[in-house]
């Protein structure tokens, strides 16, 4: 299983005012808010953490069939920062997801997986790939072996990404 999220930073800046009273409290834990406020680039950290929650939510949603708005329950932890990549975990209840987040000046992109080794087998699908939906969840039929694979789709502003393992 896989989850992804992409944030077009220009669009996010236009559409969201993260400094709005109450905004951070509704979606980020106290520790996450500290990380944002202490960061040299707080806005980038807002979308960095948000994209990790969203990518992980997509796996959680597929695993549990639960649909809901509970960003505070998906807590982000940063494990390592290598160049422009943040490696971390998102934890909800007893479940742990592994996240890899790329930070650029134009977009922020997180991919979430269930085990670290999955990061080595990620496939990026073209935007015209035939995707089928089952109960709202996207799948892709691998032409090589006809196996139905779970995919994750994200689009925001100028960017779109479709991934599977």
């Amino acid at each position, binding site marked *: 299983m896989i989850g992804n999220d992409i944030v077009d930073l220009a669009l996010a800046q236009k559409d969201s005012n993260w400094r709005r009273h109450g*905004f951070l409290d*509704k*979606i980020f834990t106290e520790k996450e808010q500290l990380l944002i406020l202490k960061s040299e680039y707080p806005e980038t950290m807002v979308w960095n953490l948000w994209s990790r929650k969203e990518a992980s939510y997509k796996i959680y949603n597929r695993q549990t069939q639960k649909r809901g*708005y*509970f*960003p505070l329950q998906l807590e982000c932890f940063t494990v390592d920062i290598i160049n422009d990549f943040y490696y971390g975990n998102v934890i909800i209840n007893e479940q742990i997801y592994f996240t890899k987040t790329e930070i650029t000046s134009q977009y922020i992109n997180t991919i979430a997986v269930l085990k670290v080794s999955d990061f080595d087998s990620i496939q990026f699908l073209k935007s015209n790939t035939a995707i089928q939906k089952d109960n709202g969840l996207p799948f892709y039929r691998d032409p090589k072996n006809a196996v139905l694979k779970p995919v994750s789709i994200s689009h*925001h502003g100028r960017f779109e990404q479709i991934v599977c393992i």
Partner: protein
Amino acid sequence: MDKQEIIEKLRSIVKPYSNNQNAFDNLTESTDFISDLQINSANLVDVILDIEEEFDIVIDNQSMERMLDVQSAIEIIELKLSEK
């Protein structure tokens, strides 16, 4: 406040965040904020904060969890108003 008044207020709250004009024009109780109005999930928090301000209520995390469609929003608003 009756249900119709709540719906009218909700309609003006979601308007700036909606990305599907047709779904917005045909807004009913069963309209989903995300799949129908195509509100970006990061803007759902703005909808929730706008509701808090407009109705002068506090939406706790448990209520926020199911705030995904017009019907649940109405239920939560009615409940919070009755507790005031």
